[in-house]
């Protein structure tokens, strides 16, 4: 378990402010009446079912959706104008693309300057970012030849190299094993302790409860926000996921458990009790 910095509700230095925002794509509303204030240096998890609008909320902060009503401000400016490091879902990446780890990281500043190569200073900075992420020894390796955690770190490196005011991550723990998930969350926690504001979407409600100080439950709008221990209640989770969920509190830890279906007598009889030793 990490030791997340407590969410400071008295913090006046706001980095993200959404004021009653209704937004979507090509006339289709994806989020309604969203008001959210995120202080600088915070570490926030966005949870909710698929299609709830988690990615749309990230894209609102990036300035990449149509805002029909309200106002979205990032670092005091209109969303889309501030420097934000974005780590997308990695499912869409073409892993066979002939590109190395250092080339991906250096794309973080592709929009700056017109020379085909990076300056020596920028290159050193890229390697400093990679060293911080523990991937500097993989600089010349093609991205397919990396583990899930290393791939995630590479794209995190691209976002960090752009010198962002904050990091937005879209499901950074999707499709990775439990060790890699832990590795990624520890790394994000370290970055947060270094002062980086982080907002991430995830389906891992228990990981959010264990690692993050603040959680926002979304389902078409914001259902609730607060520390996981306060927000994870059966009532709020039912409204968020439209499903009954059991919440277990143990030793200051909050766990969300699935409510099991009744297994029929026939199916149950086919399963032996106790572990099977191989």
């Amino acid at each position, binding site marked *: 378990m990490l030791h997340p910095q407590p969410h400071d509700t008295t913090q006046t230095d706001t980095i993200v402010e959404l004021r009653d925002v209704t937004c979507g794509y090509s006339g289709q509303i994806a989020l309604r009446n969203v008001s959210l204030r995120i202080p600088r240096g915070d570490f926030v998890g966005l949870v909710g079912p698929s299609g709830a609008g988690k990615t749309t909320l990230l894209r609102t902060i990036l300035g990449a959706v149509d805002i029909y009503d309200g106002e979205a401000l990032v670092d005091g400016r209109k969303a889309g104008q501030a420097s934000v490091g974005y780590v997308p879902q990695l499912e*869409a990446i073409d892993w066979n693309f002939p590109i190395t780890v250092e080339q991906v990281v250096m794309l973080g500043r592709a*929009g700056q300057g017109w020379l*085909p190569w990076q300056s020596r200073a920028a290159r050193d900075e890229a390697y400093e970012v990679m060293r911080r992420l523990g991937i500097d020894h993989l600089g010349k390796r*093609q991205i397919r030849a990396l583990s899930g955690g290393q791939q995630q770190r590479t794209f995190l490196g691209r976002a960090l190299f752009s010198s962002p005011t904050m990091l937005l991550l879209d499901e950074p723990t999707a499709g990775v094993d439990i060790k890699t998930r832990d590795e990624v969350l520890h790394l994000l926690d370290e970055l947060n302790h270094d002062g980086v504001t982080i907002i991430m979407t995830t389906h891992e409600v228990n990981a959010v409860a264990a690692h993050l100080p603040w959680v926002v439950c979304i389902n078409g709008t914001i259902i609730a926000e607060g520390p996981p221990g306060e927000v994870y209640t059966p009532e709020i989770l039912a409204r968020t996921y439209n499903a009954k969920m059991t919440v277990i509190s143990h030793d200051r830890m909050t766990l969300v458990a699935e409510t099991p279906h009744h297994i029929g007598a026939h199916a149950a009889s086919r399963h032996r009790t106790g572990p099977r030793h191989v």
Partner: protein
Amino acid sequence: MFEPLEYEFFVRGLIAATVVGALCGLIGVYVVLRKMSYIGHGLSHAIFGGAVVAYVMSLNFYIGASIWGFFSAVLINLTTRQRRFIAADAAIGIITTASFALGVALISRYRTFTRSFDAALFGNILGVDNNDLYAIIGVTVLTFIAIGFMYRRLLFTTFDPEVAPFFGVSTTWIDTMFSLVLAGAIVVSLQVLGATLIAAALVIPPITARLLTDNFSRMMFLSVFIGAACGFTGIYVSYFVDVSSGASIVLVSTAAFMAAMLASVVRDHLATMRGNEALATAPLEPGVTKEVIYD
């Protein structure tokens, strides 16, 4: 060996084929990685339509064909990006065949051409005059400069087009510039290779380079070198074997591809064998069994 160099037309052809090979090798890297391999074939046919329109309107061939090709490439990019359920190959199929059909329709309507459209379709490298050569070299120099300036932005929009705008790289702007460069490259390559063989010059060198490296910048250098070398060798071969120059260039490129393919298979096989040897000699924990992989 040096006998054909005594002929001026051969020297012009040799320079044209080498430069066009390098040009197509450069552009082809992006074409292949953007999964638009069919665009070389399609766009060269679309440009044929543009060439006919330019003739009918009494415009310069290069200007008319370039403008036509540019708008065709922009339309293909727009169709693919705006309507994601229309794949690039389908958009290319619709726009370029329509343009080609327009060219054919105009030819059948106005039957008094002086320019050889056979050359545009099948290439006529020995008919390359000084003006063609200047156009080829000029477009190639401009293309290398443009790609140099756009290098990092082009790489981003090719690798991760959805995310590039969040890092200050305009996908729309880069796509438009790339369409312009692509159209120019295909127009000047028409005379050398012809519409029917340009696709091969755009696709074979980068694919061959891809077999040899996992590094983008190395792939670009290799592709340009392979394209130029195949153009040069192809023209020489065509002189001694007495076959069509365009076909000769494509066949030499195919031979290079096959050699790279073979090298790649042998390299992977050796790597597997080395891996198995390491596995066979590695000390094992008690109770762990060995399994040698045969590929």
